[in-house]
């Protein structure tokens, strides 16, 4: 079917308008604000302040560290779960049920889920009681209001993203490739390392990028689970906007977070692609 120019403009116009209003516009406004002083005069003072105060770099570093941990935890758990669902579960019904169980938490408010974790991780919570009952620890661990707690909470919240991206790739993996590998003398482990895993890397990359960016920009879970004992970037930005009403400095921090995230993602993708090429 051919469409005329008018229809094409109409069809494209909607998404383009949406993009401009909701993404390009706010981004430009924020960039402009970050380059202004409170009165509206042009200045680079906001960035000078960020660059010269080690505190912000420390928070940025901590934020990324949490992002990496969450990406790692969701990768290990999510890959295992995706692999299990795809290769071990034979019944289609059971597979669907597992998918639903994996996705269901996304239907619940992230606030509720974060508070649930506080209950679970508290000194008298489920996790500590279980650890003590089994004799693994003698006195309760302080899991809640710690970085470990934030990592656990975010890993739980973001796990579905990893599971879904990885399992969609694994499901489309040509099974005869695995048979070919076995046929050519590879043990099951070798077949996984040489065939399954390299071919599922696109899913791992997509999943970990999603989890990482969602982690470093997450606000609700870290602010609830940190208990105010430490900051991450999103909390810092929130404070600038909503507590100190310093929109200009808040904007500068937001831009810093975004640029730093993009750079990190770029390096990550480049490294992985080079490695994939070298391995191939």
């Amino acid at each position, binding site marked *: 079917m051919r469409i005329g120019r008018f229809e094409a403009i109409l069809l494209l116009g909607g998404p383009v308008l949406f993009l401009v209003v909701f993404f390009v516009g706010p981004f430009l406004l924020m960039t402009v604000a970050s380059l202004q002083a409170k009165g509206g005069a042009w200045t680079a003072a906001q960035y000078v302040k960020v660059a010269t105060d080690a505190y912000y770099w420390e928070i940025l570093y901590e934020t990324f560290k949490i992002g990496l941990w969450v990406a790692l935890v969701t990768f290990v758990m999510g890959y295992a779960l995706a692999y299990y669902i795809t290769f071990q579960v034979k019944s289609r019904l059971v597979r669907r049920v597992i998918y639903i169980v994996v996705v269901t938490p996304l239907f619940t408010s992230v606030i509720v889920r974060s508070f649930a974790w506080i209950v679970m991780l508290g000194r008298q919570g489920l996790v500590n009681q279980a650890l003590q009952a089994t004799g693994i620890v003698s006195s309760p661990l302080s899991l809640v209001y710690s970085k470990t707690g934030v990592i656990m909470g975010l890993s739980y919240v973001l796990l579905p993203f990893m599971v879904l991206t990885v399992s969609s790739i694994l499901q489309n993996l040509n099974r005869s*490739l695995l048979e070919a590998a076995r046929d050519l*003398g590879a043990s099951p482990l*070798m077949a996984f390392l040489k065939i399954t895993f390299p071919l599922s890397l696109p899913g791992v990359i997509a999943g970990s990028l999603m989890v990482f960016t969602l982690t470093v920009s997450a606000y609700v879970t870290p602010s609830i689970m940190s208990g105010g004992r430490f900051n991450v970037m999103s909390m810092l930005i929130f404070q600038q906007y909503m507590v100190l009403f310093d929109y200009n400095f808040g904007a500068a921090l937001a831009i810093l977070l975004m640029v730093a995230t993009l750079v990190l993602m770029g390096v990550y993708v480049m490294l992985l692609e080079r490695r994939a090429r070298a391995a191939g």
Partner: protein
Amino acid sequence: MSDDFIAVDRLTKHYGPVKALVGVSLGVRRGEFLSMLGPSGCGKTTLLRAIAGFVEPTSGEIRIDGKLMNAVPPNRRPVNTVFQNYALFPHMTVRDNVAFGPRRRGVPRGEIAGQVDEVLAMVGMEGFGDRYPRALSGGQQQRVALARAIVNRPRVLLLDEPLGALDLKLRKRMQVELKRLHERLGLTFIYVTHDQEEALAMSDRIAVMKDGEIKQLGTGEEIYRNPSSRYVADFIGEANLIDCVAEAQGAVRIGAGGTALPYSSSAAGPTTLMVRPEDIRLGEMGAPDGAVSVRATVRDKVFIGQSWRIFAVLETGQEITVEPGSSHEAERISAGASTTLWWPRERGRILAQ
């Protein structure tokens, strides 16, 4: 069966209620080119996959060179497979694909390169080592898949419809190349196909399969000349299957009370006479003594290049196809004419139902 290189003994495979293999026994000789031929769903691929180790048999045994294989995982069996859709590793170059097997077996690094170059040259793919599979045509991928299997010098090469995805011309060429490769390597080939022409052209012996059973096992000529059943006769080549009736006295007639034929049947009742179209001649005169002749009416005829194909109707109304070569009679005869069809007695066979 003790001197058979591969001995399959009463192999059964059930998928739930579906019986893919029903007590198949088969002996494959060392260095033989054996084809398993049958329509899709006949169990030929299941049997191949059982030998490769991808299908766990419900019961029965597989032995290769006397060693029981049932509990041996695929990576420890002395066989390699050329898969139906090649199954080349898309993230590896041709060279790495071919080197995959030698690397797993721990062949020293220095030797691998030489082995890879050697087999790539053998299949005419030298110079393609650094390409990725997606940059190759179907025929080229086929050759790489072949190279990847034979570089391991398996005792047995299993081929699962390896030419199925190629166009006719390329398929014919690859048939010849495969056959030559078989002779050159001296390996045992087990070849799965649904193409009877392919099986006839390449195999030392053919196992014709249906519904999870081997219906007949023999050389191409044996199966073509002496099919053991209606099914085999119909599946291999073209065949006229003429419904006959065997009388209690042992005489065989076309239809009840029709022309008596000089054949005998072991049991009374309906039976089938098979005659190949190219064995039938036509003409009022010229039928030698001892030939079987029947009356028929020509319905129509078509020119097929090397001869005419004539469709005639017997007195009983059954249609019969005749390819009499380029004879005078065939040239002259026209639709509607009444004629005599004859064939040497031994070229007709009474088949079990």
